[in-house]
Each structure stands twice: as C-alpha cells, then as structure tokens.
C-alpha cells in the first residue's frame, strides 16, 4: 500500500516534466523498486546487514599490515607496466585519474582530516594550472622552474582563504569557500588582458628532462604516477604525524582539542595550505597535460566532483579517497552511453550515501 502511494506521488511530481506516458513508466519502476526494497528489508537482506559487513571485513584486512605491502608491490609493478601494453586512450584516462587522485588527497586533508568543508577547491586547482600556464607562456619558464613558484602561489592562496575560515564554522565556511571559488573563476573569465578570458591559454609546453620532451602520453604517465606516489606517501606520513593527529582531534572536537593545547588557528591554516599545495601540483600537471587551460575546467561542479570523490571513498580514509577518485573518473568513461545520466546518478548517490553509509564506502565507523 505504502509503495503504491510513494510511486503515485513521485509519478505525479514527474508528470509535468515528461508527460503522462513517462510518468506511468516511472510509476511502475518506483513501485517495483519500493516493494522489493520493503520485501528485502523485512527479510533482513538489506545492504546494511549483508554487504556492508563484507566491505568492513575487506577494509580490516587491508589495514592489517603484511598482506598489504605485498599487494602494494604488485600494484606498483602493474602500474609501472601499464604503458607497455595499454593504448593511448587508457593512458589518457589513467593520467586524468592520477590528477584527480592528487586533488582528492589534497581535499581530503581539509575535509576529511581537519573537518572543514571546502566547496571551492577547484579555485586552488585553477590557480595552480593558471600559474604554470602564465609562467610558461608569458615568461617562457619551463615546467620544473615554474613548479616551485606555482606551488608557492597556491599554498599562499590557501593561507589567504584560510584567514576567513578561522572565524567561521561549518556551513558558513562552506559558503565562503564556494564564493571564493566562484570569484576566482569569474576573475579568470573576465580579466582578458591577463588570462585571455574565456578563450583560455593555449600552447603550454609539456615538461622536459635534459632536452627530452615528456609530452607523449606514455612518458607523461610516469610523471603523473610519480606525483601520485609522492602525494600518497607524503599525505600518509603527515596523517600519522603530530600535525595529522592534531587535525583529527580538531575535527572530532574543536573545543576539546584546543583545551589540550592544540593551536586551532594554526592547524586550520596548515590544513588549508597543505590541501592547496596538492591542488597546485594537480593544476600544474593538468595544464602541462592538456597544454591548454580555460575557466570552464574549474567550475563549481568540479569542486563538487572532488568532494564526491572524497565522500564516496570515505572521509579521512586515504585508500578510500583514491578509490573514490578512480571510480568517479573511470566509471563515466567506461559507461559512455549513459554519460548524460552520470550527474543524475552522482546527485542521487550523494543523498543515498549520506543516508545509508555516511562514512563512505571505505571509511571506518567513527569511534
């Protein structure tokens, strides 16, 4: 009875948008889904009872040490071997995955470790990409000379954004970061004389080593892989360091953390700057790979996508976040035909995730 009501209601809402025929179809689909869901729930076979414990077991196994290091070595060998058998298309997607992994790891520092919701992370990504693009095209600097400058600029911008963050909490902070992201994009879009506006900057040079261009996909793959491994190791070490522990303490209880002597102000600054640093790395990699940047690549949706990677994998879990990034980049590529439904599914996925598994696929339960 209840399922008929729900199906009827949703079909009614859908009616004006696609007409009676589609509404009828939706009615049938929702009816089937809801009634089978209630049936399964009555028999105790929902995700909560059946699937999640298995994921948790997998997670516990992966955290338990020895078997992991062997698996890690295997994975590393496999990743190194990829360019020798994979085609250009696979490499292209793999490089993109790598860039997003770095971004997601960086965002995870801010959102997952320090617990500060950042909805404008694409701004740092944009700053990183544009810094390299402008240094290269306007000043003729190479990739390796520009990189430190790039990273300095993004890290400083992280500090700058963190200043308002110190005064705001929770959702207000989210909105300010969102505003920051939009302002950066609008400036890039409208400051024609400096950034070339909506047309973007083209002919950015790929990195070179001893005169050898690393622009080819197979070579660039290794540059990205190295950056990903570096970011993974550094983020992991920092997570276990004093700073990482302070972030987690701050996330769990700000007042409690400050009362045991953690300087909240400084650690918030560090988390923003450290996150922004990795966005800078990803930005420079992105600019050098595409050889072109334009404001279109750094929209609010991009920030949300990064956030989805972090949340999907599991806030605060490094392995989970990497998984999230790979899934969200590779899956839409694999499912080309249904690409237009990708964002729809992403939206629905976020809601369902928050309701059924707020800690993410691979995240551990909060203690």
């Amino acid at each position: 009875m209840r399922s008929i009501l729900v199906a009827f209601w949703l079909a009614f809402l859908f009616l004006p948008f696609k007409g009676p025929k589609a509404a009828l179809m939706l009615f049938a689909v929702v009816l089937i889904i809801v009634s089978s869901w209630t049936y399964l729930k009555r028999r105790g076979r929902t995700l909560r009872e059946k699937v999640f414990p298995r994921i948790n077991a997998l997670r516990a196994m992966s955290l338990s040490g020895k078997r992991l290091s062997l698996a890690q070595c295997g994975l590393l060998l496999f990743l190194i071997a990829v360019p020798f058998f994979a085609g250009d298309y696979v490499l292209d997607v793999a490089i993109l995955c790598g860039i997003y992994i770095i971004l997601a790891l960086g965002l995870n520092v801010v959102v997952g470790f320090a617990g500060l919701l950042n909805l404008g992370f694409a701004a740092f990504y944009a700053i990183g990409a544009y810094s390299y693009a402008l240094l290269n095209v306007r000043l003729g600097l190479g990739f390796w000379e520009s990189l430190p400058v790039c990273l300095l600029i993004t890290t400083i911008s992280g500090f700058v954004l963190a200043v308002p963050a110190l005064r705001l909490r929770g959702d207000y902070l989210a909105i300010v970061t969102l505003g920051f992201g939009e302002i950066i994009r609008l400036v890039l879009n409208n400051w024609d004389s400096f950034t070339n506006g909506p047309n973007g900057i083209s002919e950015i040079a790929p990195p070179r080593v001893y005169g050898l261009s690393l622009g080819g996909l197979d070579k660039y793959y290794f540059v990205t892989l190295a950056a990903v491994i570096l970011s993974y190791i550094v983020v992991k070490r920092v997570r276990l360091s004093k700073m990482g522990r302070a972030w987690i303490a701050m996330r769990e209880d700000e007042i409690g953390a400050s009362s045991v002597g953690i300087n909240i102000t400084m650690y918030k600054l560090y988390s923003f700057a450290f996150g922004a640093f990795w966005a800078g790395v990803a930005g420079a990699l992105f600019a050098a790979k595409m050889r072109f940047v334009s404001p279109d690549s750094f929209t609010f949706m991009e920030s949300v996508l990064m956030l989805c990677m972090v949340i999907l994998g599991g806030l605060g879990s490094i392995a989970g976040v990497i998984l999230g990034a790979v899934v969200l980049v590779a899956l839409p590529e694999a499912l080309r035909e249904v690409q237009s439904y990708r964002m729809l599914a992403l939206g629905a996925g976020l809601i369902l995730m928050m309701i059924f598994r707020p800690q993410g696929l691979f995240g551990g339960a909060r203690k």
Partner: protein
Amino acid sequence: MLFQQIINGLTVGGVYALIALGYTMVYGILELINFAHGEIYMLGAYLGIILFGFFTSVGLTSHSLALSFALTIALSVLFCSAYGFTVERIAYKPLRNAPRLSPLISAIGVSIFLQNYVMLTQGATDKVFPDLLGSAGFDLLGARITYLQVLIIGVSFLLMLALHLYVTKTRMGKAMRAVAQDKVMASLVGINVDSVISVTFIIGSGLAAVAGIMVAMYYGLVNYFIGYIAGIKAFTAAVLGGIGSIPGAMFGGIFLGLIESLGASYISSEYKDAYAFAVLIVILLIRPAGIFGKSTEEKV
C-alpha cells in the same frame, strides 16, 4: 539613470528576497543550508513555462488570459511545494540527528539531481517564456518602469507581508517560531515538529515558485542552471540580513538587488555575479550574524 537603476534593483531584489525567505526559514528551524532551494525556484520557472504552454495548447489562454495565468501560478506553486515537501522527506528527514555535514552534502546531492533531472527531461537549451505584458509601462522621474516591474515589486511585497502576518499571527506561525527556538521543548508542549518542518518547506518552496515564474517573465529565458546562481544570491541575501530572521531576508534581498544593479551600471557589468560573493564574504568577516541577526555563543 540612478532612479532607473533603483527600480531595476528593487525588481530583482524582490525576487531575491522571496527566495531568501525559503533559506532563512529552513535555516531558522533546521540550521541547514538548503542548497536545493535554488533548484526549487528553477523548477518553478520551468513549471510556469510548461503549464502555461499546456493551457495555451488546450485553448484556455485564448479564451481567458487571466484565468490561464492564474492557474499556471497556482499549479506551479502546488507542484513546487510538493517538490519541497518530498525533498525534505527523502533527503533531510532521515539525517535529522546526523552530524551537520551530512544534510549539507545531501542537499548538494539534491541540487545536482534536480538540475540534471530538468536537463534530461526538458533539454539543455534555453526555454522561452511567452511575452505577456511586453515592454508596456510608463515614465516616472525620467525612468522607464514597465508594468511587469510593478507587478513583480507588488507581488513580492504582498507575499512578504502575508508571510510576516502568517508567522506572527497564526497558530502555525507560533509553532514555527517555537520550533526555531528549541525543537525539544516545542515537541514537549505538544507541537508536531515534523509537520512544522514540512509546512516550512512547503511555504518556502511556494514562494520560490512565484519568484521563479516572475523571473521567467522578466528575463524571458529560463535554463536548468539558473537555480544555482539565484540560490547563492538569495542565500547571500539571507546571510546579509541575518540568517534565521524573516525581516532580515526581506531587507537583505532588496539590498543585494540594489547593490547588483547599481554596481553593474556604475562599476562593471562583467563582474555582476561576483558582487554577491564579495558582499557575502565581507559580511561574514565583519558581522557573521548579519544585520538583523543575533550572534549566538557556541554551546559547549
């Protein structure tokens, strides 16, 4: 010139205020930034176009324009309220006791979902709202004021007045204020908190629907992503006035409309959308509680 910009600012500001009311009411009660509220406004604009087109196709518009228009508004409000109610039930209600980040992320999910839902069902191209009043109007103090602008400003103010009376004078309004102050205490004195929250979403969504239709008429064009930017601006308006405060949202909306309109004509129109963000950041830095808001101490 100045007077013209003020009239334009009031028109847009009235619309912002109507949307901002939805944000502020929900925030007052749930402490949740309802990210999906801008999408409800977008749905309102689309429903206006769809329903008006439907009535035209069945011949009602040629029979009686006023009736067809009134039905369009009434049905859009009904549908949007239904959407607001449904969104609350599906995406927010199960998360009422979750950490604060969860409903916010869920709200972002709703926003993405609704945007793409409209894009997939209605197409990604601009939709045109039929020009009903045209550019007919009158001249006052050297400014050209269209009847449409008068309509928008008039309707916005009437609705705001109605809402104010509803919240201050009726039983349900009293219950809303009680729930906003303290949910647990309100439920102890016999207020059904769930239904108060539902009513809040229904009213806020209805106001957003009216705003959506009026904007569709004003600009003539509607797209599936108008909700995002309008939502942000309305949220800015709500924060500007002091989030949670209903008069604050009204004031903030109009103030923001004026800033935008004057800024676009006297400073630079390219950065028109950036003013809202800049104002938002400045307000949050100087006076996070907003102009009418009370600053609250954090509970330990």
